């Protein structure tokens, strides 16, 4: 393997001291409570804050218990000219999604890994329908996302967080996008799953047919699904039903995001008023 001269190198090989996590079928116990005490349809408490990065045009931080994601958005800049001849009438969102090396149970590499790249694309596809792309032709808006700690639903958290960061950056948007995630195995459905629940549902417990995890990017005002990322094994009828149920769940998160943004605008108006009074 080539040596990375740009970083301080550790020993050639090292290994995790923890034993690999086994899947915990006990999460599926028929009781009404989940491992962290939530009901199946209950979301973790959301902590959301815009304007956390001073150097960015807009930014936001989201915390779903142990899942922690930070996002910053920059001014539109001219597109990295790939096709000079090709005039595009629409702008573009460029997303870079990265899991911090210490964000998961296992240490991750500094370089962008395959799932970082995949999530970057999924996030871009989830955000673009929400943005008035025609207002900045030939320009791209950079959206940078860093997952500080991953305990499930990190893509969903990133969508919500990036939506708020875009609004904070005053990028014109049709709606505030909301990300939601659901894991299911057999008859049990976990809304806003934790990392353990996600792993278990992705794998499925033997003998039960339907299982999987899906993340949905949602624009509540126009009732649009901008991203539907699913992995698992499920019948179309049930899947269709689950998607249609998402609307009500999204409305709640959407309200919360709107309220946070409103109060952020209010407080910045107040502070700018005060400073004008000082003069």
């Amino acid at each position: 393997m080539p040596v990375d001269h740009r970083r301080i190198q550790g020993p050639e090989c090292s290994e995790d001291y923890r034993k690999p996590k086994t899947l915990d079928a006990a999460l599926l116990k028929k009781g009404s409570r989940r491992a962290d005490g939530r009901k199946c349809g209950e979301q973790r408490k959301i902590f959301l804050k815009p304007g956390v990065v001073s150097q960015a045009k807009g930014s936001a931080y989201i915390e779903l218990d142990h899942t922690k994601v930070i996002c910053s958005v920059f001014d539109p800049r001219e597109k990295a000219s790939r096709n000079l001849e090709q005039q595009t009438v629409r702008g573009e969102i460029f997303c870079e999604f990265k899991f911090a090396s210490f964000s998961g149970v296992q240490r991750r590499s500094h370089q962008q890994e395959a799932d970082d790249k995949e999530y970057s694309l999924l996030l871009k596809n989830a955000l673009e329908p929400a943005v008035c792309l025609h207002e900045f032709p030939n320009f791209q808006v950079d959206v940078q996302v860093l997952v500080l700690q991953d305990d499930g639903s990190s893509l969903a958290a990133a969508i919500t967080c990036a939506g708020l960061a875009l609004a904070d950056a005053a990028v014109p948007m049709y709606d505030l996008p909301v990300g939601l995630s659901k894991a299911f195995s057999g008859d049990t459905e976990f809304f806003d799953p934790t990392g353990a629940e996600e792993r278990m549902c992705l794998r499925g417990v033997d003998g039960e047919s339907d299982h999987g995890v899906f993340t949905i990017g949602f624009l509540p005002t126009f009732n649009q699904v901008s991203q539907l990322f699913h992995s698992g094994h499920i019948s179309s009828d049930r899947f269709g039903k689950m998607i249609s149920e998402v609307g009500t769940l999204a409305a709640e998160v959407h309200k919360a995001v709107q309220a946070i943004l409103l109060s952020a605008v209010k407080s910045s108006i107040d502070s700018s008023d005060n400073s004008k009074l000082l003069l």
Partner: protein
Amino acid sequence: MSSTNERIICVPGQVLCASSNDHVAGQGTFERMGYIYASLAGVVKVEKKLEINIVQVQSLKEQSTVPSPGDIVTARVLIVKSRQCMCEIKCIGDIALTRPFRAVLRQEDVRATEKDRVKMYESFAPGDIILARVLPIMDVHTYQLSTAENELGVVISHSEAGVPMVPISWTEMQCPVNFTKKLRKVAKVIPENIDIDMEDNTETEKKPST
């Protein structure tokens, strides 16, 4: 200024009003299915023009706008060549940009008359701050500017002594220290105005920035 509770604050995707003949969507808004929605988080403003109410949303952060044809921009001259000069756009209207945009000002767009006799070196110098209008986009990656109006052209230019020069005609500026004259395409701005602005600001700037 009015206090917060008198203003309407909105977030992207919020319905502002029904769109009609006398209510149209302006900046920071968009129209869908007969309604005007906000596309920005900020304060709603309604501007009345010829009996038509233009509904706008003004963001607190300067907008993520890009120059559009017809805008008046403030730009800094970077390189002057014989047929054109390169600039970077610093402000669009009265919005200061955080990232500049590249732009080109061609020889034929420097002034409205006697276009063929324009000499770029006698109109601009690197470092000058100019006011210009954005032309319709021809080339994909650069904006084209024009100073072919009386009010457009050089507004701030520094002499070799490092002090701002004073315009003495629409083609000349003079250094107040060693009185050398330089040729420029000068914008028609009342000169005192600039001086007052420059001096005053140093006095009022002491408040903590927000």
